[in-house]
């Protein structure tokens, strides 16, 4: 069965303090790995898709990377508005399996 594990469960950073979130996965036939951001009371907001090991994507202060077993979401010099839950998901055929997320809090 497809499995996605995210760590840490929660992360508290000072504004400007860079860090990384981890997503490890076990799937057969990965078609894509996705990162989403979810704010309280809202649906997940799409950030990145990664398809193959070695691929990297960047958007503002966020950078996502992919290996054969895990993905990292690097946050550089975060701001309070980056506070949210970050979800990782993998797609096999039409089924998308999500991790439980990392709740990020950035303190001014």
């Amino acid at each position, binding site marked *: 069965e497809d499995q*996605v594990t995210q760590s840490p469960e929660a992360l508290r950073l000072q504004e400007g303090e860079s860090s990384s979130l981890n997503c490890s996965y076990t799937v057969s036939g990965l*078609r*894509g790995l*996705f990162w*989403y951001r979810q704010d309280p*009371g*809202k*649906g*997940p*907001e*799409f950030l990145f*898709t990664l*398809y193959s090991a070695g691929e990297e994507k960047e958007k503002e202060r966020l950078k996502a990377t992919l290996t054969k077993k895990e993905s990292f979401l690097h946050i550089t010099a975060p701001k309070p508005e980056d506070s949210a839950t970050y*979800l990782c*998901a993998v*797609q096999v*055929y*039409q*089924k*998308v*399996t*999500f*991790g*439980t*997320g990392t709740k990020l809090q950035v303190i001014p």
Partner: protein
Amino acid sequence: DAGVTQSPTHLIKTRGQQVTLRCSPKSGHDTVSWYQQALGQGPQFIFQYYEEEERQRGNFPDRFSGHQFPNYSSELNVNALLLGDSALYLCASSLAGGRDQPQHFGDGTRLSIL
């Protein structure tokens, strides 16, 4: 450009009742997926609809059923509601294509079972 819209936003039901949730996909999208998200958990895949057919299903009982209409909108039906069905139900739409397209989510329907 309207995103994914879901209705209603909140719903309260009692055990044993039936419920129907509705979803309009993002303009230009033809595929709709439904997810259940319990508090503090990631979304869990219920099923996906494409061309009015259920294309794949997650580990949910037959009490959960769906439908997709010719205009690509979709409904999720849940029968014989249980307390454990209380959750946020999310609809996501995407465009079917050769390279897997990211899903765009609505803000969900919060279902509470008393």
